[in-house]
């Protein structure tokens, strides 16, 4: 049973189509990164999952139950860090957590939860005076109440500094290790690649790719790009490089000194050796891997990618 199953989900606001026949699954026990630029429909999807808004068409199942008919049951087993929320100005962090603990019928210790998100100092301060980052930590602590089976985190890094974002990822790992499924959305690949087992990329309300992080990397790049600066161009040497089975494309730069750029999947040394065997002097070389950010860009901006 998948932790989350979205089937042909469509949501329209009048003429505007926010989600267009969206389908995907989040497997039990995995960390799933839900990626897309702002406005792609991530929050709309999460709002349907939480029954904040109702689908125009399609079906959503969370923990095996219909998201609309059994929302209360679902939310009692789910921890949520929503997007566009606001904390209660006149309640302290402790009171927020007491409310969440009472609401979920849990028996957590507010102090211990705030300790985990590094907000224990402000436990008795009213949330009205919190910075965005502090509010975000408080909401994360509320999401952790009652050891939920599923964590839904909508842009959890918002307002956090790099250190805070790292701590947040650490908590995601801990919760996942405990057995929780984590579904978390972000507009930045950087936030998800370090923790996610799989990533789905949303664009204009449609899922354009769902794959593991490695799979995504492989799907757009021909492996590693090897850039070699040589003393001269020798046709025979270039031919011998092209002949290598691990090399897909070879291009020659005309600048001085000349460079040879090759897409290599296997051994880079084989390329260098082939050149040197033909008496070409290798002065310098560098390798570049396609970054996931490039992958993300290529999917979400619609520019053509050099897929195999």
């Amino acid at each position: 049973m998948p932790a989350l199953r979205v089937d042909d989900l469509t949501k329209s606001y009048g003429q505007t189509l926010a989600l267009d026949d969206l389908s995907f699954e989040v497997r039990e026990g995995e960390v799933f990164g839900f990626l897309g630029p702002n406005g792609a429909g991530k929050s709309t999807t999460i709002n349907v999952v939480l029954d904040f808004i109702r689908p125009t068409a399609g079906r959503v199942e969370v923990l095996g139950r219909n998201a609309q008919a059994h929302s209360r049951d679902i939310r009692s087993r789910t921890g949520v860090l929503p997007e566009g929320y606001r904390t209660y100005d006149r309640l302290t962090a402790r009171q927020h957590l007491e409310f969440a603990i009472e609401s979920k019928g849990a028996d957590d210790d507010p102090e211990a939860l705030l300790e985990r998100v590094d907000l224990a100092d402000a436990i008795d301060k009213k949330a009205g005076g919190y910075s965005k980052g502090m509010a975000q930590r408080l909401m994360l602590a509320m999401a952790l109440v009652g050891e939920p089976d599923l964590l839904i985190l909508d842009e959890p890094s918002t307002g956090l500094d790099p250190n805070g974002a790292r701590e947040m990822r650490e908590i995601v790992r801990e919760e996942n290790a405990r057995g929780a499924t984590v579904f978390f959305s972000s507009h930045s690949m950087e936030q998800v690649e370090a923790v996610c087992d799989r990533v789905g990329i949303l664009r204009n309300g449609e899922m354009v790719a769902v794959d593991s992080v490695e799979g995504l990397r492989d799907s757009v790049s021909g492996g590693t790009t090897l850039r070699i600066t040589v003393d001269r161009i020798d046709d025979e040497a270039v031919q011998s490089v092209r002949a290598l089975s691990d090399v897909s494309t070879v291009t020659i730069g005309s600048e001085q000194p000349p460079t040879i750029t090759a897409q290599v999947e296997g051994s880079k040394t084989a390329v260098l050796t082939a050149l040197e065997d033909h008496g070409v002097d290798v002065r310098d070389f560098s390798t570049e891997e396609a970054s996931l950010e490039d992958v993300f860009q290529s999917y979400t901006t619609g520019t053509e990618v050099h897929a195999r």
Partner: protein
Amino acid sequence: MSTDVGSGAGPDTTATDAGAGATAGGSPSSSINPASVRAVAKKDFRDSIRSWVFWGLSVFFFTLLVATTGVISYFGEDIAAQGETTEALVAMVNGITRLVIPLIALILGWKAIAGERESGSIKVLLSLPHSRKDVLLGKLIGRAAVLSVSLIVGFVLAALVVVALLGSFDIVDYGGLLVMSIIYGLAYTSIAVAVSSLTRSTTVAGAGMIGIFVLFYILWDTMLVAFMTLMNMGYLPEGETTAQVMLFFNSLDPGMAYQNVLSLVTSVGDLDGQTVMMLENMFGSVPFYLQDWFAFVILLAWIVVPIAIALFRFDRVDL
């Protein structure tokens, strides 16, 4: 305003309409859970009110009672002689609370739901396992509690002064006014929370509160006057039916019901013998809607109907 669901699924979603269609009515999601309601009410009581509002209201009710008592003990020697001081106090205070309680309830309830939708804090509430009905009822109870508890504090503290100043004290009359004031406040809180749940804009909700205020303070009476004028000018048939409709209409006003219902619990506001005789001459007997039990039914209806409509509707909207 948001789009309603259910009908939104459209005709071309043959296999997948269950998700959108199965939302309403009877399903576990839209059920009411007392523990949930209590949690929301408690949170709302703690959060919605700056403590000075609560104490300010308590002081206000206290002062109102003590000042009225002072006026009675200073001017009202005749009243005192007749030993009807508490009765006079209840009648005078009722005249003022009738106008003031709605204002307070509307202001307290104004942002109850619209404010949370506008700011996004309702997402905090509904990320937890509460149904939307739990949220509405919890809000109603939380806000009504602020008004009720300050009424109780004000009345109980003032009782000591009333006893000291007036000498005599009828606890049934005094307690009756308190209980009916709480119920009256609950009715207006129900109206306010219901109107607040219709929109996600506090501006629109505020306009709604002004609308309610104008309706019951100005329009209701104006309509009666208009009726009367039309009847006098001969545009409406002068007769029993017209008079019945007007009296019935008049008795539906929650403020009128609040005033009439006092006779159920206190010695204030009973129809005097002359009126009863006049009514019996006109209609054969005192019509049911002029009897005090009916005023109580009206008050209860003003609690139940607005929140019931809100409960039904709020389950069906996008937040």
